Structure formats: C-alpha cells, structure tokens
C-alpha cells in the first residue's frame, strides 16, 4: 500500500474511474497538459487521451453546463473548477438544472456529474482563492455535497461521487492537499456518501468538523487528552445529505457538542447541525452546543487569514468550556 498525499489520492481515484468506465470524462481549466493547477489531474491526459481528459476554455459556467449535457447523455463528467471563488458562475447550472433535472423530468433525464473544486483558506493565496461557502451548496435540494479530510477518504468518496447517479459537488481541502498523508490502497472501493466518520473515539465531548479543519480538530483533541478530556472527533465528510444518526449517537454518549468550521458563522453549516441537535438531542446535552467558526467577515487576505480561521486553541477552549459548564 502506498503512502499518498490527499491530492495524490484524488489523482489515483480519477485514474481508477477513467480506467474502469469509458463514460468517465475529466475536464476543466488547465487539467490537460498541465495536470491541473494543484496537479490533481497530472498525467491523466497522457494516459487516457485528449477526448477523455481535456482543457476547456476559461469558462466556468460552460464547465458546469457541459456536465449537465454530458450527464443527460449518460456520460460521467468529472469537472474541475480551480478555486471555490470561481464556482459562483456555476450556481445557476447547479440550482436551476443539475440538481433538479431528474425531478423536473420525473426520472426521464438524470444528471450523474461531479463538480470538483478546492475549499478553504490557509495557503496564502490571492483574494477569491480561500472561499468556504459550502453551506450555500448544502442548501440546494437534489445535490450532494462531499468534502474529504484524509487521503483514504478522498479516494473512496471521490469514487463514490463519480459512480453516484446524481450530481455531486466535491470540495477538496486545499490546505491539506499535501499536508496530510496516509495509506491508500487502489482497491476501487467507494465509501458511502451519507456516513460520517468517527476519526477519534472519546467519551467527554464530541467535536464535529469537515475538510481541512478536521486536522486542527484532531490536534485539539490531543491537547485536550493531555488535560484529561477525552474528545470524540467526527469527520462529517458529506454535508448533503449528512449523517444525523452518527452525530446524535455521539452527542448522546458525550453530552457535549462543538462544531468546527472555517466558513463564516451565520447560516454556516454548523447552524444546521446545532439546530438538528437542539431538535433531536436536547435531552442528552450537558452543555450548550458551541460553534468554533470563521468570523462573519470576508475571509481576509493572507496576512490575517490565520487569525480568521478557527485555531487549535479556540477549539480547545470551547471544549473545555463545555466540559466545565454548569
């Protein structure tokens, strides 16, 4: 088994999907010869040819719309939008077409497509390159929203997204593209698209996160362990639909819940989870649900981006407060 970075695991899953299924086509800006600005598609055009792995014009709306047309014909388009900040021209296609084509034709035309894009801050990138607006996508009925937090889950979830019969937005946490490594077997096995992963078991407090923040949350759990606080860490992995049962079971065990995301707080996906726990898990709570999030500001340019994002210290503080509540 090979030790891979997260971005290499993405590449491995794409190669696997292309090799397994002639209907899979991969495209986007610079994904061909250049292999993608993060090299997620490196070597794929040489291996699978220019009709299956190709560069599009600089045209994000087109890329998302092409997916819909190809998927309607039974292809399995897997397209890349270089940065989440450039995803917004695709929203019309996602909201008005991809997510509802199956429903508005009552199953006559379906839309098995994957739109991959990067997610989050922390790579000292220019403006518009550090977006975390996943809640906006999770609000769209008919869509699936997936965000892996480890190489192994990136591989399995991307294969699942490509094989899924419905449209999936696949968010790739830029900050940990190369900052996390893990054993990945090219087994061709997909992971489920509506199951959260308990990445550390614990009894005292549940820490829920997704994407790059899972790494910081695990670090916070180590700090808490040194304090004698046994934190359970959950990688949500799929935001739409999300695994309510695993979250509720964990909170009923620990009685405390901290939600960690780098997106802005108001109407962030943490609000959805907090509301769900208030509705269905209130009686197991020993402390108020707390959110550790980005602020309700524009994500700052690199000089301040670290100050914006939830830190290990903020996560630890929130968990301690929950454990000391009452």
């Amino acid at each position, binding site marked *: 088994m090979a030790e891979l970075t997260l971005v290499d695991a993405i590449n491995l899953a794409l190669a696997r999907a292309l090799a397994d299924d002639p209907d899979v*086509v991969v495209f986007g800006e610079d994904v061909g010869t250049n292999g993608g600005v993060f090299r997620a598609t490196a070597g794929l055009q040489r291996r699978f040819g220019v*009709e299956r792995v190709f560069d*599009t*014009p600089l*045209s994000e*709306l*087109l890329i*998302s*719309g*092409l*997916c*819909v*047309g*190809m*998927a*309607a*014909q*039974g*292809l399995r*388009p897997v397209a890349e939008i270089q940065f989440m900040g450039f995803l917004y021209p695709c929203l*019309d*296609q996602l909201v*008005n*077409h991809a997510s509802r084509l*199956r*429903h*508005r*034709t*009552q*199953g*006559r*035309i*379906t839309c098995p497509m994957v739109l991959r894009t990067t997610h989050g801050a922390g790579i000292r990138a220019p403006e518009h390159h550090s977006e975390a607006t996943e809640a906006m996508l999770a609000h769209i*009925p*008919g869509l*699936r929203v997936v965000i892996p937090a480890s190489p192994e889950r990136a591989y399995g979830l991307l294969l699942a997204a490509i094989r*899924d*019969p*419905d449209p999936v937005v696949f968010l790739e946490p830029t900050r940990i593209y190369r900052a996390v490594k893990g054993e990945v077997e090219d087994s061709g096995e997909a992971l489920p698209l*509506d199951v959260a992963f308990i990445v550390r078991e614990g009894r005292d407090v549940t820490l829920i996160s997704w994407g790059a923040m899972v790494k910081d949350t695990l670090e916070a759990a180590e700090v808490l362990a040194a304090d004698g606080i046994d934190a359970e860490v959950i990688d949500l992995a799929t935001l739409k*639909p*999300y*695994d*309510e049962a695993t979250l509720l079971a964990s909170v009923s065990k620990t009685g405390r819940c901290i939600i960690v995301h780098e997106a802005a707080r108001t109407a962030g996906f943490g609000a959805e989870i907090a509301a769900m726990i208030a509705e269905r898990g209130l009686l197991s709570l020993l402390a108020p649900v707390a959110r550790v999030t980005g602020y309700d500001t524009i994500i700052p340019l690199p000089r301040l981006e670290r100050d914006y994002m939830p830190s290990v210290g903020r996560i630890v503080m929130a968990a301690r407060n929950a454990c000391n509540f009452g």
Partner: protein
Amino acid sequence: MRIHPIPPHAEYKMAQELSVVATFEVRRRSYLGSDGTVLRELPSFATDRELLVSLYRAMVLARTFDLKAVSLQRTGRLGTYATSLGQEAVGVGIASAMQPNDVLLPSYRDNAALQWRGVKMDEILLYWGGDERGNLWSGPAHDFPFCIPVASQAPHAAGVAYAFKYRKQARVAVCIIGDGATSKGDLWEAMNFAGVWKLPLVFFVNNNQWAISVPLKTQTASQTLAQKAIAAGFSGEQVDGNDIIAVRAAAEAAIAAARVGDGPRLIEAVTYRLGDHTTADDASRYRQSQEVQERWKQEPIVRLRAYLVAHMGWSKAQEEKVATECEEHVEGAIERYLAAGAAAPQTMFDHLYARLPAAYSGQRKEVEDRFRG
C-alpha cells in the same frame, strides 16, 4: 436590417491604412414573399405536397393549441403560458428537419417544435398546468424539457454534442433560444466551446424582436444576431422566420453539415412575436398596436397557405378540414389534461435523487401522513 455606419472620425481614417486581418458576411435566406409568391428557386423538398401540407397542419395545430391554452389560462385552468403566435414556422421548420435521435434543447416558447417531435399536447398542458409529470412525455426520451432560465440550456447543448462526438454517433444537438438569449454569456460560452471542438450542434435564434418589453435595438447593437457565431469560429445565417420553407431549408443544411462533422452553425430566424410575452404580460404597455397590425401581414400560416393554393391545388375545403381536425385534436388533449388529477403530495420527494437519502425519508413520511385519507 438596421445599419450602424461607422463615424468618419480621425482614428477611423487612420485605421483604414492598417491591413485587414478578418472579414465576414452574413447571408439571408428566404423563398416565399409575405403573399406566398416565390422569390427564388425553391429547395427540392418544396415539391413534396404531402410534406408541405404536414408543415401547414403542424403550424395550424400549434396556433389552435396556443389560442386554446390562453383561454384555459384566462379561465383559471392553466398556469402562465407562452404562446408562439406568429412564430410557428420557426418551431415546426426546425423540428421537421431533425432526426428522431437528435436531441432538442428547447426554450419555454417552443411548443410547436415539441409537438412535431411527438410530445402530446395534454403533456404540454400538464407541465404548464403546474405538474412535473408533463415532462415525463411520450416524445423523445432524450429531448430536454423546456428551459426557463434564458440561454442556460446552451451549455447543455454543447455537453450533449460533445457526448455525440465522443461516442462517434451521427447525431446532432439542436438548441433553440430567443433574441434576448443572445445577450447572455451562457450562449457565448457554449458557442465558443462548440467552435473549438467542432461539435455537432446547431443553435437557432427565434428573433421575435421582443424580450418581454425590451425591443431588439435595446438588446444589442449587433447588425444581425447571426453574426454572433462568427467570433466563435463558425458561420451564422439569417432566415426569414415567417417563411417555413426557408426555416426548414436552413435547418436541414445546418443539421446535415453538423451531422457529417462540419461543426456548429447558428441560424437566426427573423420573425415577430404577435402575442404577449406570456399570459402574465400585457404587450400594449410597451408597443404600438399599429406595429403589431403591420406584422400580421407577414405571418407564416397565411403565407404557406397562399403558396399551397397557388401551386399545390389547395382548396378552401381542405383548409377547413385541417382547421376542424386541429380543433378536435386540441379539444381531445384538453379533455385528457383536465381529467388528470394531482399527484400525491409525497411524490414531491420522488425523483429528487435516484434513491431518497435516509436523511429526508422522515420528511417524506411527514407529508404522506399529513395527507393520508
């Protein structure tokens, strides 16, 4: 056609000394004058009386359907509806040039094209009557449903055409949009890609002069809409959109070229929206009735009928027979439409995903329980 002379200012005079690196021209196709007179040699299909009669019948059917649909809406039995009044030659002309396994990507006004493709009128009514089941139609299963957000199906057409090319299928994607849609980036992005990949794709612009209340001169300073294709690297042609022989001939040529790998085309069909934008619109707020009266003199059904009478021995009795048959046909469709009950409320969850995720099954059950018994 509006001409925009370039002002003879100093910079322009200087520019004339520079070399010309690109030129283009846009041709216009028309065969029948507004009174049905033949302007130039007709395409070979125009000798096929049976075909011409079927085109005539389809246009009459579309108009009969539109008028009945409007009265259904006015009496509270149909939702908002967009007629194709005066533009019947566009939809029928295009659809009649397609093969069944080609893919149509229509706009909301393209009822006439859908009817030719085999979509039943009661299915069209069901959709505009507020029921998604209308899109589960008996027309070609691969044709797209009506596109409501303007021009947003153009990139789909490029995706469909890419699939044809990728699979080496001799099929063509046909996308119909309006004049307003040519102002949107969606169309440009789709045309640009189609040009790069030489896709089997034909764009048709139903230039009916009005995008709700906005006239063409406010929409664009472009001399023609056809020329918008040229920057994408393929040709655009203008046709008299009230001359069904011209529309069909242009469509046949463009679709045939696309089918053999000659790449995309754009056809601008110049016509006129004789009716309101939709039943929710009142065009008298923004355009003069005199303008509309003038345009009635050019409408497509009278024109083809004049040709049939003059050259094909078409009689008044035959005309009346077609009219009666169309009336009966539409009445039958309306009866079937009105007899269709509403779907069960919980079906709003069906077809949301291939399999409803467990996360939403509780909501479906809640709806089911609310409306039980």
